[in-house]
């Protein structure tokens, strides 16, 4: 039937061409045109005049493209409206709140309320139909206005060339403009993480966009209107050329994906909503994968490919979260580690695709940032699993209680400022655990020869209890100029170290160690000698993140420019130095002093040492 219609349309077009070239006269043209138009109308009437497929990718004349659920809906609709048995109304219903397409199970009772799988709104088919009816009215008014403004009285009898003209000159520009303008405010939606943990969602750059969440909550009439317009069959009839079809499809993908991103943003911060987020990401993935087959432009294709790769990795990550954090029983840490490793590999693949993507950086850079955030979330989870794996070697513990205990400990250690900071803290805890478990050695100085002198250093006080610990420092190589010579001044480049006390984040203590300092060889040796940490000595995790340490070290080098003549600094990593907390007793009472082989050390360690001891027990 679709072929018949198409044949007639082609014939009508050919008549247009023949009359314009003078091959047939006007009366013949009129007569033939009337005849064929009439025949076309008859076919359309027999098909049902209100055939309207309201979703992208489903052609009205191609019923093979319909899902079984839609067929079901068609059957039910016709049964429930016997007076209209000759006129089928095919509708793909949408959720009246979030506007995502409805999923109706085969054989489902349409009189029962439906639950939107993407936002969990419960609604009836009637509600959805009412909503669609209103949107269709708006669509008709808009289409009429656009066609009339193009110089045609109505849709009927508009030939193929005219349809192409109307689409290119009027419908598409108007629709694109409106979509561009509306979506302009959501240009950064890809920058947001698609997968969140309870611990990350309050960080400034991880917080969901309020405008997106409002969209998902139902403040989205414009989105519904645009969605109806862009996927209307009536509009698709005007996209005659393949190129036009592709342009329209691009708009459809942009509008539909916004619906899913809005749902993700809304539910990313809800506890226990991983299933819901997953469904939206799966829908996005389907959309991207289908669209990928249609995109011809290689730059844009590479961009869609990245979007698809990201969703693939995020679905895997969500599966892990659902298993470990929502269900959370019988977790085998080694298996979990393997799976999270796979997820990170997938995310890294997506990121490398994003970095190689040749599409406009205005779109690829936010996407890279979004993938990076997903990767950070995955790595936080990986760090938790690593810690869990080490902890459960000596003591059996369920995953979720361990998770809660670990997070409490991390929050006791520092005021966590960002997801990267949390990741660093958990990684640092993991490193200490692994080094204590005799698995992964760390750069550590184990020279305690300075301790006796340090303990006796304060002669007026009586030393009491001495508690040893390994103290973390960020260490940076410092290239500095040493000016020598008495008569003739000569500059030489030297290498020393700058160390930042990593046990606190607020204004870290920086210590410079030049090539002439006595501790310099110990530092050098410590960096070379990776050793395990003693079980009986507490080792503090490094709280200070890399960026802050680097910043503090640079600021120190700048402030001591005249004295040190620093040429360059290069961060090397964390070095553990021996330190001790000594309780002195004098006439004023007890006082704890922390000492190490360096001149300055953080004195406010009592809580951190206590919490660490408790966590390690």
């Amino acid at each position, binding site marked *: 039937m679709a072929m018949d219609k198409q044949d007639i349309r082609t014939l009508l077009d050919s008549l247009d061409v023949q009359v314009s070239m003078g091959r047939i006269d006007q009366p013949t043209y009129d007569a033939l045109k009337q005849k064929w138009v009439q025949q076309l109308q008859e076919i359309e009437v027999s098909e049902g005049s209100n055939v309207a497929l309201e979703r992208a990718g489903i052609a009205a004349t191609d019923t093979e493209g319909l899902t079984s659920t839609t067929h079901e809906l068609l059957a039910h609709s016709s049964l429930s409206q016997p007076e209209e048995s000759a006129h089928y109304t095919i509708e793909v219903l949408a959720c009246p709140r979030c506007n995502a397409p409805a999923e109706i199970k085969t054989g489902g009772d349409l009189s029962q309320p439906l639950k939107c799988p993407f936002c969990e709104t419960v609604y009836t088919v009637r509600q959805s139909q009412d909503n669609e009816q209103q949107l269709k009215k708006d669509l008709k008014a808009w289409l009429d206005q656009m066609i009339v403004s193009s110089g045609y009285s109505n849709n009927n009898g508009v030939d193929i060339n005219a349809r192409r003209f109307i689409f290119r000159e009027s419908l598409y520009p108007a629709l694109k403009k409106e979509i561009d303008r509306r979506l302009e405010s959501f240009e950064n939606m890809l920058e947001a993480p698609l997968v969140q943990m309870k611990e990350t969602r309050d960080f400034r750059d991880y917080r969901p966009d309020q405008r997106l969440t409002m969209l998902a909550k139902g403040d989205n009439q414009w989105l519904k209107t645009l969605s109806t317009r862009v996927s209307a069959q009536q509009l698709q009839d005007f996209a005659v050329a393949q190129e036009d079809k592709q342009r329209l499809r691009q708009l459809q993908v942009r509008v539909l994906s916004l619906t899913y991103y809005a749902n993700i943003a809304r539910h990313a911060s809800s506890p226990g909503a991983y299933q819901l987020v997953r469904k939206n990401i799966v829908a996005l993935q389907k959309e991207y994968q289908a669209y990928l087959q249609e995109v011809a432009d290689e730059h844009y294709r590479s961009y869609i490919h990245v979007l698809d790769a990201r969703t693939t990795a995020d679905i895997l990550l969500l599966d892990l979260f659902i298993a470990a954090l929502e269900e959370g029983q019988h977790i085998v840490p080694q298996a979990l580690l393997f799976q999270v490793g796979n997820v990170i590999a997938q995310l890294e693949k997506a990121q490398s695709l994003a970095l190689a993507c040749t599409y406009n950086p205005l779109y690829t850079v936010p996407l890279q940032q979004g993938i990076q955030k997903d990767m950070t979330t995955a790595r936080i989870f990986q760090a938790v699993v690593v810690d869990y794996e080490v902890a459960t070697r000596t003591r059996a513990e369920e995953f979720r209680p361990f998770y809660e205990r670990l997070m409490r400990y991390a929050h006791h250690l520092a005021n966590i400022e960002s997801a990267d900071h949390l990741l660093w803290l958990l990684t640092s805890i993991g490193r200490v655990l692994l080094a204590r478990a005799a698995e992964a050695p760390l750069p550590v100085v184990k020279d305690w020869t300075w301790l006796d002198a340090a303990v006796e250093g304060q002669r007026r006080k009586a030393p009491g209890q001495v508690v040893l610990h390994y103290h973390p420092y960020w260490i940076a190589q410092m290239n500095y*100029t040493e000016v020598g010579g008495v008569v003739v001044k000569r500059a030489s480049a030297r290498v020393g170290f700058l160390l930042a006390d990593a046990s606190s984040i607020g204004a870290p203590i920086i210590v410079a160690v030049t090539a002439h300092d006595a501790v310099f060889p110990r530092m050098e040796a410590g960096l070379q000698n990776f050793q395990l940490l003693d079980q009986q000595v507490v080792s503090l995790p490094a709280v200070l993140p890399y960026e802050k340490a680097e910043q503090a070290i640079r600021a120190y080098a700048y402030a001591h420019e005249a004295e040190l003549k620093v040429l*360059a600094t290069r961060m090397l990593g964390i070095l553990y130095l021996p330190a001790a907390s000594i309780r002195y007793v004098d006439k004023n009472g007890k006082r704890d002093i922390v000492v190490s082989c360096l001149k300055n050390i953080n004195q406010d360690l009592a809580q951190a040492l206590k919490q660490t001891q408790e966590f390690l027990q």
Partner: protein
Amino acid sequence: MSKLFENVRFAMGFGLSGGEIYSRAFEKGVLMKDFIKAADLFDEAAKRTSAEGSAELAARAAANSLLYSYLTKKNVHLLEPLVKALGGLYEIERIGLQHEMMRVGPLCAELECRRIEALIAQIHDDVVRLRDLHRMAAGKFQAMLQQPLITYEYVKSGVGHDERADARCFYHQGMYQFYEAMTKKDRDPSTAADDLALAQQAFRRCNDQHWMHKATQLLDNWRIARTCWLCHREVQGYELHFSMCRATVTPYTKHLLATLNQDASAVQLESMKVAVCTPCGSMMSFKAVEEAEKVRKELTAKLDVAFSRIQALEDRVNRIYLNQ
């Protein structure tokens, strides 16, 4: 004795070989943060090593000389010879250091960008040329999006965004879209507004508040469409293709538009203004000028007649006085 002599010789710079002068350029210049001296010593080292037949060191010395000259003098004319000099090398010492090397590829790519930026700085009014150069610069920075910037720490761009290549890329992309909008505004304000939207997006990404504010302001204006009070055509672009002109308007005027189902926003009751498109407005202005000119000419002619009559009367009065 000989060591002391060696030290004095090196310190005074007597009889140094090309290699020694090259080392001296670091010790007396680079490491002492005296880049001007470093450039001079590298230049001397280049000449000496070249004469000695050490082509590789000569090439590196020449490149270093030009590099440190550029870093201190900030002379954009040095960029071309510098890129050329670097072209023959694989790696060069990191700026400010003696023993750490860096590959010249990223440095050359950055200097190429700086050449385009230098051209941009020379152009002031040529919107099309500015657009093309900004587009070119954005493209070049896009290719090095992940690389750290090398020379911007020493030679600031003057427009900010000296820390990261992606920020520079977005700045140039924003400027390109901005000038693209300028080239289109008189033909198609709607498309020009779309370009401004992209410019705004790019400026937001590089956090350029000044240009973002400018683009936003223009965008807000250019997206406004009003029906001209005179010709009743819908015109897009406030302060571009239409303006609001002073008029005596009343609530009745507004009511009249509402009754006729016409664009009520064409009237602003609070400020007593009506929308007038640029052709109508300018036509009125020109007509007013023409009319004023016509009146001026008529009055001038009348005044001329009057003056000549006064002159004639004065002459007559004078003659009467003389005859008396």
